């Protein structure tokens, strides 16, 4: 029987990144994926004949440049097409457009508010500086602040030193970003409702929080952290959809000798005297390895694959109260023609960027109010892209695919999710969007509606949370996913975690997978 160094549970992008790094360091690695193809939530599929979609996640922004470089992802087929504008149609028929061209952007902002146009550059500079201060933390394995272990004390000290090295002004600005609501934070800078609405929208993605909820300001930074090939603030599509990110990682891992088995669902981690020694597949097959790395979310990993009886009580309690609360849905449309937005009806560069249904902070907050009490937002927030505008291979000639990220669709829906409720969600989304683009209904050839319950069922993410657990302050850094176990290790010896349920988590970033691999290589040189 073949023996592996590392068995990786789950072929999502973090599992694949971890596998690639381990294989690159000469380890014998096996990746086990439950579905027919790898990718997890970074997955492309021809959902309707001729129409390809990034089924779940749909843009690339946070993917770490060192991962692109070290795993040679471009050589393995990854190509990023930049996404350069954001259009926010307004309820009064006007719009707010944000362009990558500085002067054009400034003119457009000034049309809404000369004061905002003035403030915008300063705001950008501050956030840019904050993003630079935070970025090194994405690569750090969070030390345990209560630890007495000398190595960790050193890490704590150097972390302390890092912060002490930052100008005090920046530290306070960072604290504000971590603790304020996006709406309060933006109120200090801007007055235009459309601008505040659109900017605050980035703070609510993936959470069951509204723009007025404290803690949402931090995510504004993410927009300034996205960097592709060293270009700050660039967002983009992977050519061929987000599945191409996973495919490139898988190819890189395989080139270094990793094995990948699909349709191999793991049902259990084998634990002998407190130590992980392998896994059991659903078909009963046992596979042994020196260590096991789980890319599944913390709930599935510990309460499902490991089992509570193997866990210390405190740790099990932490994992049980770890919050998921999925709130995002996805609607994928195959279109016979391009949408014509009332505010900008002719086809143009705005269709090559993002279209954001976020006319004001109040609009988003009301959408949240519905979800807070367990209902689908009557008028949801939407982030829309039309990938076929940039990558014609996604749709047949003259036709298009549209990807609509929708919030809020709470996982814990009153009465539960059903086929009828799924269609109701789809109708709500289409009806809302059709108010801005009246030809939409007639243009739809096919539609796919994915609820948080579907995300959980198909991809395996608990409660459909796209970040494997909310990125709220009490679930970040030292505390992700549980205090004392934020270092990719677990209370079970030889069992590691590498999913976005660990620091830094969230988005198609790959940092959790990479950090986990480095932690493992540090433990087992």
């Amino acid at each position, binding site marked *: 029987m073949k023996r592996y160094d590392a068995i990786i549970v789950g072929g999502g992008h973090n599992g694949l990144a971890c596998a690639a790094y381990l294989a690159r360091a000469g380890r014998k690695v096996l990746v086990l994926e439950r579905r027919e193809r790898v990718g997890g939530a970074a997955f492309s599929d021809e959902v309707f004949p001729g129409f390809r979609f990034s089924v779940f996640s749909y843009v690339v922004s946070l993917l770490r440049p060192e991962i692109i470089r070290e795993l040679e992802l471009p050589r393995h087929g990854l190509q990023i097409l930049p996404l350069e504008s954001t259009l926010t149609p307004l309820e009064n028929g006007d719009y707010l457009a944000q362009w990558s061209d500085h002067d054009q952007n400034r003119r457009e902002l000034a049309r809404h508010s000369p004061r905002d146009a003035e403030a915008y550059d300063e705001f950008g500079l501050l956030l840019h500086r904050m993003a630079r201060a935070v970025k090194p933390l994405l690569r750090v394995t969070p030390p345990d*602040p*209560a630890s007495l272990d000398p190595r960790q004390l050193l890490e704590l000290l150097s972390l302390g030193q890092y912060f002490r090295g930052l100008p*005090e002004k920046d530290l306070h600005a960072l*604290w504000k970003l971590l603790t304020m609501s996006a709406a309060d934070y933006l109120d200090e800078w801007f007055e235009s409702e459309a601008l505040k609405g659109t900017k605050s929208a980035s703070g609510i993605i993936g959470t069951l929080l509204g723009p007025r909820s*404290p803690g949402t300001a931090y995510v504004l930074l993410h927009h300034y952290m996205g960097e592709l090939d060293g270009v700050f603030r660039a967002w983009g599509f992977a050519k061929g959809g987000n599945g191409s990110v996973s495919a490139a990682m898988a190819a890189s891992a395989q080139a270094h000798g990793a094995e990948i088995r699909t349709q191999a669902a793991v049902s259990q981690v084998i634990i002998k005297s407190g130590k992980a020694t392998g896994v059991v597949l659903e078909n009963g097959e046992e596979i042994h390895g020196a260590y096991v790395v789980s890319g599944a979310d913390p709930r599935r990993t510990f309460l499902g694959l490991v089992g509570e009886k193997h866990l210390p009580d405190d740790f099990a309690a932490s994992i049980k109260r770890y919050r998921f609360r999925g709130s995002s849905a996805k609607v994928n449309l195959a279109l016979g023609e391009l949408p014509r937005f009332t505010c900008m009806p002719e086809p143009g560069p705005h269709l090559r960027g993002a279209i954001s249904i976020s006319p004001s902070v109040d609009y988003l907050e009301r959408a949240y109010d519905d979800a807070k009490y367990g209902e689908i937002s009557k008028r949801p927030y939407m982030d829309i892209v039309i990938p076929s505008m940039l990558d014609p291979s996604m749709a047949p000639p003259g036709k298009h695919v549209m990807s609509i990220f929708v919030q809020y669709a709470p996982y814990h829906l009153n009465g539960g999710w059903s086929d009828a409720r799924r269609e109701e969600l789809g109708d709500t989304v289409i009806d809302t969007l059709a108010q801005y683009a009246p030809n939409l209904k007639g243009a739809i050839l096919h539609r796919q509606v994915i609820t948080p319950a579907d995300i959980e069922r198909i991809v395996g993410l608990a409660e459909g949370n796209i970040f494997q657990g909310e990125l709220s*302050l*009490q679930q970040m850094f030292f505390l992700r996913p549980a205090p*004392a176990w934020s270092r990719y290790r677990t209370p079970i010896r030889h069992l590691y975690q590498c999913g976005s349920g660990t620091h830094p988590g969230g988005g198609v970033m790959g940092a959790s997978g990479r950090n986990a691999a480095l932690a493992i290589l540090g433990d087992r040189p």
Partner: protein
Amino acid sequence: MSDVVVISGGVDGLVAGYLLAGGGRRVTVVLEQDLPAGTPGWVPPPVARKLGIELTVRRPDPWLRAPLPGGGALELWQDMQRSVESLRRISPHDAGKWPEFSERMARLGALLERIYVGPPPSLVDTSFALRVRRLGRRGMEDLMRTLPMPAAELLDDWFESDVLKGALGALAVADLQQGVRSAGTAFRLLHFHAGSPPGVFRAPSSNLGVLLRGRSGVTVRSGKAARIAVSAGRVTGVILDGGEELAAGTVVSDAAPGRTLLDLVEPGWLDPDLARAVGHIRSRPVAARMRLELERAPEWPTLTLAPSLDYVERAYDAVKYRRASAQPVIDAVADGAAVDVVVQYVPDETAVSLAPLEPHLPLITRQTVQYGQPHQAELALDQALWMRPLPELARYRTPIGGLWLCGQAMHPGASVAGASGYNCARAILRA
């Protein structure tokens, strides 16, 4: 002529004034409004000690009384065992959890009690970090988790009773324009716990105001400050409403930072960036405070009407869109036949209805109402500790030479009585 003029609308200015006088300064206090008989909020013991006063502290008992839907009420007492017994009647589960919850929160509360006496720690303060480490693993984990948490999440982690969670949640968001599901509100539960025995999340009140008014050693006069005179970047005195000028090289103000720095000081002395930041201090009025005179004393010392966390959250929803809650949170504390009632959320001076309270009240003979934000700067994580009210002002000193802030907007402020005055005076005496 005095060395120091204090502009005072509350106890903090008087505390600062007397401590400065104790330090050998000649002090004039301009009292802008009379102090109420009872001073709400915990007075840290070093404040009373330094003033040499013996406080009479009032701790309502039960400190929380929340009516149950089927009649009767949940009552939480200063005495832990009595609280457990009352809880047992509504939820044996919660009764079982209460002592451990109280004990763990009290440990964190004790940390706050220590850091509230003295200037706020800095964000990268090694001695603060070491103090936190002394909490031990469990304490540190509790602290890191609890500070940024929503009160609702903390309470849901521990308890099942809606009545218990609703009432505690209501106290956690007192005077804040946030709801119980907002991050950082669990911290406020600890804040209001400071100075109380384990398991008591309502700050006591005292006769601090009365004792301060009865003291001698400083010149106290009533009046209203119209302007703080500044020359060459330094204060030279205070000009009163009538035009009279009180000259002094040091001016201490317990008025809100916005009023002190933007209204009383002539524009131009403050750096525009700081002026903008002062203008952004969040200090939104969220509650109507009423004082009711009753025919006779009610049967309860406190009464909290907030039957569930969702009830509190829905009350908050209205204020997000600048409306008063249709079903507000009501918290009442009785002192004999006088009752102080707080009705939240009320964003402006709209008339409030006491209908929900009426079944619990004897006849009202007289009522007065006040609006405003008593904390001057809402106590939220981005306006607490080293951020209170702004990092640039957190050490009580302002960029204008000789001008100091000591009001409720300063650390710790927010219903901790006299501590910001105490911290400010000590900073001045050390300077």
